[in-house]
């Protein structure tokens, strides 16, 4: 009986300690919960594309961003997303970890990261689904989603899983920030999961440096380098190299410009004896009509393969972004897509779409 009494005391003590640990884990002053909601309407109003002739409502995104400041130096960041009204039982929509990484701050010039992250390349990839952070409804196809605009393979994958270094600094009056990532890269084999294992012997390397020479101006360069297996060619590899330059200018009360040019190669000489040279351009001009109304005009162009004639695609987007109230945005735009006959995605189809979106951030 005495032994039982002692055991109960031990169990009680363990429970008390465990409860204290749980209380610590749920310390909400260390946690910030944010996210966004995006609801869209799309309709093809003229041309050869028949995908959205009826007009479609799309519960585009419900997204949660969780930041946990575990210590003064250690941050855990997680972004969870549910796309297109996810219902896994019916195999509808998509659920994804957009990013999940730990970041350790050494100093302002050096923070180390490990986990799944957005690929730090150019202007748009890291904010591609965050609709409250974008003026337009969709990110550019030409420089961000070129695999949906005529290329088989993107200039760089949307995410990478690995380690990274990032930092901010000053040189005189100029500010700069940089990112470097070493990762598994992308996998061509659909059965392989690059966020779990690397199916080739070489790691992907990418980086970006941006400089702010004056108020509201930022210029940057990016690169991505990777090798992948080609399952159709007995495991032979092909190499992806992409390079980008970017320019951003925003006066916050007048005109603004975002421009990005990406070029690079897909070297398949080992596998098929060929090499693809490709390039994409995005140019956007916007104007702060008031603090809440921002009209924009964007032009996109992609040459998927320099050696193939008549495969180019262009897209022109005209729209307006209206901040109805803090963090609630309504956007309306017309997108015109023109493609040439040898374009791998649209095969010469030209069409015009109307798009509207409601996005709310918190």
């Amino acid at each position, binding site marked *: 009986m005495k032994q039982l009494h002692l055991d109960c005391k031990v169990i009680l003590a363990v429970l008390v300690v465990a409860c204290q640990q749980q209380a610590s884990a749920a310390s909400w002053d260390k946690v*910030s919960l*944010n996210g*966004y909601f995006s609801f869209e309407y799309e309709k093809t109003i003229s041309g050869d594309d028949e995908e959205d002739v009826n007009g479609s409502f799309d519960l585009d995104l419900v997204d949660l*961003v969780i*930041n946990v*400041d575990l210590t*003064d*130096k250690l*941050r855990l*960041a997680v*972004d969870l997303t549910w796309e297109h009204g996810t219902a896994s039982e019916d195999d509808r929509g998509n659920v994804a970890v957009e*990013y999940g*990484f730990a970041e350790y*701050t050494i*100093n*302002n010039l050096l*923070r180390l990261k490990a986990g799944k*992250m*957005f690929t730090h390349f150019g202007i748009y990839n*890291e*904010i591609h689904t*965050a609709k*409250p*952070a974008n003026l337009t409804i969709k990110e550019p196809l030409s420089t961000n989603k070129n695999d949906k605009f005529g290329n088989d393979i993107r200039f760089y994958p949307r995410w990478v899983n690995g380690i990274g270094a990032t930092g*901010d600094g000053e040189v005189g009056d100029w*500010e700069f*920030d940089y990112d470097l990532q070493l990762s598994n890269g992308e996998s061509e084999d659909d059965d392989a999961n690059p966020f779990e294992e690397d199916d080739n012997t070489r790691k992907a390397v990418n980086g970006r440096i941006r400089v702010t020479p004056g*108020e509201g101006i930022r210029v940057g360069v990016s690169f991505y380098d990777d090798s992948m297996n080609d399952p159709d060619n007995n495991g032979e590899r092909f190499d992806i190299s992409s390079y980008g330059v970017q320019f951003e200018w*925003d006066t*916050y*009360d007048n005109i603004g410009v975002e421009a990005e040019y990406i070029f690079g190669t897909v070297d398949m000489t080992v596998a098929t004896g060929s090499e693809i040279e490709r390039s994409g351009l995005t140019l956007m001009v916007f104007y702060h009509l008031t*603090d*809440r109304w921002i009209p924009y005009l964007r032009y996109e162009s992609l040459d998927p393969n320099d050696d193939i004639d008549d495969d180019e695609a262009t897209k022109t987007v005209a729209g307006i972004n209206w*901040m109805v109230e*803090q*963090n609630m945005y309504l956007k309306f735009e017309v997108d015109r897509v023109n493609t040439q006959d040898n374009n791998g995605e649209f095969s010469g189809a030209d069409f015009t779409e109307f798009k509207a979106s409601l996005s709310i*951030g918190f």
Partner: protein
Amino acid sequence: VNICNRLILIVIAFSIPLVSYSTVYIVTNQASGVTMMDKQVKRAFLGKIKQWKNGVSVDVCLEEANEEERNKFYSSVLGKTPSAYKAYWNRLLFSGKAAPPKTFGSQQELMSFVASKKGAICFTTSTESVPDNVTVLGER
């Protein structure tokens, strides 16, 4: 003549632009080592530095002020409108670059946060009850 003078006075009175009397303040924990409103203060509010020069971690916070007060702070200290500041932080937050500044609805909560966090720097609309270890860096 008297009526004319009165009318002129009324016209002049209505012609004087409305003067804003609201004042906003930047306060910091003394352990941050920040003693003046320099470029580092602006960089802290823009999420561009994680540590002060003495190695203490930066913690930014904001008070839920009214529109006039917010305008005053964001334009005079950061050179941005409130919506531009929000848009700026949306990009940092959703890209995973940084956690957003903490926001407080009451003075008491804000001051207690600044007093408890060594690297805290905050925008507030009043300095009525400033704890001993908190410095008022400047006002606008």
